[in-house]
Every structure is written in C-alpha cells, then in structure tokens.
C-alpha cells in the first residue's frame, strides 16, 4: 500500500496561511511531530508520495526526499490517498479492503482507498483526474472525517497532542547531560533528555502537569524553567526562558523570554524577553527584543482572526495569539494584537501600540501602515543571509516559490498598501 499525502491549491487551504504558503499542510506541527509524520505513523506506510501545490513542488521535493507531484506514484499499488487536513488520530482506514472515497461538503477529497485492481478503470494521468474519476465511480463514505480547519486548531490541541506523542515515543530518563544543581519537579519518568542534549545548572524541569521531551543536541541555559507538556526540538537553545506548558519549539531555535502554548518551527529566534502565547510561528522568523503578543482580550470574549481574504473568523477560543509566517522579522518592542495574522516575509516595525490584526505577506509595516518597504530583492537577500548562517542554501527554487507566494498574496497586500499610503500621507 502506498500512502499519498494530498494538498491541493483550493478549498480551505488559505485557512492555514501564512504558515502553509511555503509548505504542505501536513508539514505543520502539533505535538512533537508534523501532521504528516502522524499520518505516516498511523497508517504504517513505508511507501509515501506527495501531491502539493505546483509552485512549492521543487522546494518540497528537495526537502522531503519523497516523490512529489509524480503521476507514476498513482500506479502499480494499492493507494491510500489522505488529505493533509485529516486528523491522524481519527484515521480509521483499513490498509486493505474495497475502494471508497470520503469528501467534505465542498467535494474536496479527505481520503480515498483505491485498490490496485480498480486503478485501470480510473484516470490516473494526474492526481486531480484520479480523484475526479474516483468521485464518480467509487462508493462514497458516509462517515464524518475529522479534519483540522484552521491553524489555531493546532495550537489549541498542542498540549494534549504533546502528552499523546510523549507516550507514543516511549522514551524517558536522562540520556543527555543534566548538570547540578537542577531540579526535576514531578515524576522523572515524565522527562526525557536525549543524547547530546545539555541541561545547564539552575534549570527547573516541571513535569508535574505533563511530560517534557528535550531532543538531541538541545541546550537549556541557566534560569530556564520548562513546564510540561513541552517539546524542545533538536539543537534548540533556551536562554533563561520561562517556558510555560504546551510548547513545541525547534529544531535549531533560540528562545528566551516567556513562551506559552505556542508552536515554533525550526530556525526561528526569539532570543530576548517578551511574551509569546498561543502563537504559531514559522521558520526563519526573528522576533526582536521585547516583541510581545496578546493572546487574551480584555473582555474575555472569543478571539477573531482575520484571514487572507479579509474575513474575520471567530476562533471559538478566548486564547489565540499570533500566526506568523516564514522569514518575518519584528523590530524591538513590537506589540502584536490578539489573534494577529502576520504574513510571511514581512518586516514589522514597532509603533509603541498594538499593530493591525492583519499584516500581509511581503509588507513592511511603518508607523502602523503597510508599505512596500525595500521590496522583494532586499527580503530575499536577508533570507539568503539568515539561511546561510545555519548552513542552509537559498536556491533558485526557493526564489521561484516565494515569487509565486508574492503573487498569491498580492490582492490582500495591494489593498493594505493603498490604505497605508493614505495613512502615511495624513500622518
């Protein structure tokens, strides 16, 4: 059986912007692993192929090492096609059995099991053609398939997912180094320090309310306090951080200040003081000293997040922080509003007041107004430098992908630029 991970440039994909602008939805994280890793583990698949929006195919092919957007993946074996939005914990698809397909109310394929013997009567020229013919000729599944609807769903589910993933990992104890005096509160079996990880003196690991997993090569510097459940990724450094419960951080991040119930992808820095709560932060982000996000409104009402299409969505939660896309930088003292949606490749300058709730990708925020800033060339140059510092290449494929992201996000940005010009002229 071959697992086909599916993410098409349609439907509810923009619900996961800005994080999904530069990666398939299944590369988003919840708990200790990505959604894709959970799907692979749940289905037990060893043969995995992927179908992603075309503009990110080349970058993702290089990063994942898997077949990407290759129609040959659609032939020669039983197929289990799973949409990246499907919750792995609820996947109950038998590896063998009759062919069938499950779609959502909009007709988007959530999963399809296609037996090898049924493939000849379907059109497997492309994944879209295959799914179209499957919709027409395979029995439809009536059951409801639980899916992730928005990025903040992952943040809100993170604490519980961390507990489940810690149990599933089945590791516990100190295989790295914990220097004395440090304190472990709660049960030692709820702490795992991986080989090569280093916990400096004067660190508190508080596992009383949940497990703590410190992955290989991580360094936990003095005066850091980590509350479980938390996952600290490979080669991440915590610098005297107040790391509250429910965090997924890393790999290769530098994090200080106070962080609560947040997910931070790799290679991002929040080196200094400042509060980050119920936030989802992409790769290569730098949050300047004292950058702080609100995750709770003063009247305790549900937080609304403005999506790329300008539509505010009630999250149904009183606690939602910022969503911050890849390569975005904030200046010192930046104050992000509750449920702020900050695009990718943005440069955010402080105003001393909470900033707009929606900041488009590739925007330079000056005096609270969206401008073009120094343009794409400068942003790409910065991205190349940032990646080079961590020995990661910025390739022509990256540039081509981000050029496409620039176009994808143009409508929202152009509206904001127009307002920004008026605001600056009046200031």
């Amino acid at each position, binding site marked *: 059986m071959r697992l086909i991970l599916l993410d098409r440039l349609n439907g509810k994909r923009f619900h996961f912007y800005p994080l999904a602008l530069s990666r398939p939805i299944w590369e988003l994280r919840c708990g200790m692993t990505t959604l894709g890793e959970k799907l692979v583990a749940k289905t037990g698949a060893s043969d995995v192929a992927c179908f992603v929006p075309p503009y990110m195919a080349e970058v993702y092919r290089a990063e994942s090492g898997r077949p990407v957007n290759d129609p040959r993946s659609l032939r020669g074996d039983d197929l289990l096609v799973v949409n990246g939005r499907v919750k792995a914990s609820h996947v109950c698809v038998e590896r063998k059995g009759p062919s069938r397909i499950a779609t959502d109310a909009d007709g988007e394929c959530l999963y399809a099991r296609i037996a090898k013997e049924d493939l000849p009567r379907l059109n497997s020229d492309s994944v879209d053609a295959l799914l179209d013919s499957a919709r027409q000729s395979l029995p439809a599944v009536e059951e409801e398939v639980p899916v992730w609807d928005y990025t903040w769903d992952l943040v809100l589910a993170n604490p519980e997912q961390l507990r489940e993933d810690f149990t599933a990992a089945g590791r516990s104890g100190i295989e790295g180094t914990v220097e004395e005096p440090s304190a472990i509160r709660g049960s030692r079996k709820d702490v795992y320090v991986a080989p090569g990880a280093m916990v400096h003196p004067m660190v508190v690991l508080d596992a009383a309310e949940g497990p703590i997993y410190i992955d290989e090569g991580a360094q936990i510097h003095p005066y850091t306090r980590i509350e479980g459940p938390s996952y600290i990724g490979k080669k991440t450094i915590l610098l005297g951080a107040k790391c509250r419960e429910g965090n997924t951080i890393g790999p290769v991040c530098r994090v200080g200040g106070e962080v609560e119930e947040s997910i931070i992808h790799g290679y991002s820095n929040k080196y200094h003081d400042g509060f980050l709560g119920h936030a989802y932060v992409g790769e290569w982000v730098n949050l300047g000293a004292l950058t702080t996000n609100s995750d709770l409104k003063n009247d305790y009402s549900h937080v609304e997040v403005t999506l790329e299409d300008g539509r505010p969505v009630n999250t149904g939660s009183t606690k939602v922080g910022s969503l911050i896309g890849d390569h975005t930088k904030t200046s010192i003292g930046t104050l992000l509003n509750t449920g702020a949606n900050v695009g990718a490749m943005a440069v955010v300058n402080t105003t001393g007041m909470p900033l707009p709730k929606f900041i488009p990708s590739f925007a330079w925020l*000056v005096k609270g107004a969206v401008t*073009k*800033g*120094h*343009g*794409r060339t400068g942003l790409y140059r910065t991205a190349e430098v940032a990646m080079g510092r961590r020995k990661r290449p910025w390739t022509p494929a990256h540039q081509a992908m981000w050029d496409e992201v620039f176009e994808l996000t143009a409508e929202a940005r152009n509206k904001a630029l127009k307002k920004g*010009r008026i605001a*600056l002229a009046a200031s």
Partner: protein
Amino acid sequence: MPSVEERVIAVAARVLRLDPSEIKPEHAFTTDLGAESVQSVELVANFEEEFGIEMDEDAALAVQTVGDAVTFIANVCKERGVDV
C-alpha cells in the same frame, strides 16, 4: 499648479521634518537630508500617494537625490499617463 519639483520637495520636507527652503535638487536623501532606512520607505509611499502612481520599489529606492526623484517620478507619471 505646483511643479513636480515643488511637490517632491513638499513631500520630502513633510516626511523628513525639514523646511522646504532647505531642500535643493542636488541634495541626497540620505547623506544630505538625513533620511533613514524607514524614512526612505515612507518617502516612496508618500510620493505614490501624492502623484497617484505606483513605483517599482527597487528602482524608487535606488534614486539618490531630490533632482533624480523629480526626473524618476516625472517619467513614471508620463508612462502611466498621469498629468503633472
């Protein structure tokens, strides 16, 4: 109607908080008028609003002097069919 040069100087004076009489065409925005990086971005946005045009940011930010900005903006206006 004020000339392109007068309008460019008026915008530069407002953004950089200078007396318009102190701004000459030969002045460089950064070295002579003290424009910082963020103010350069503001200048571009304000010129766009003043003249009702859109400028390529890389080309616009490559402009060094007030006189060059006048020429650059006049050319963009001409290309876009904007009367100045």
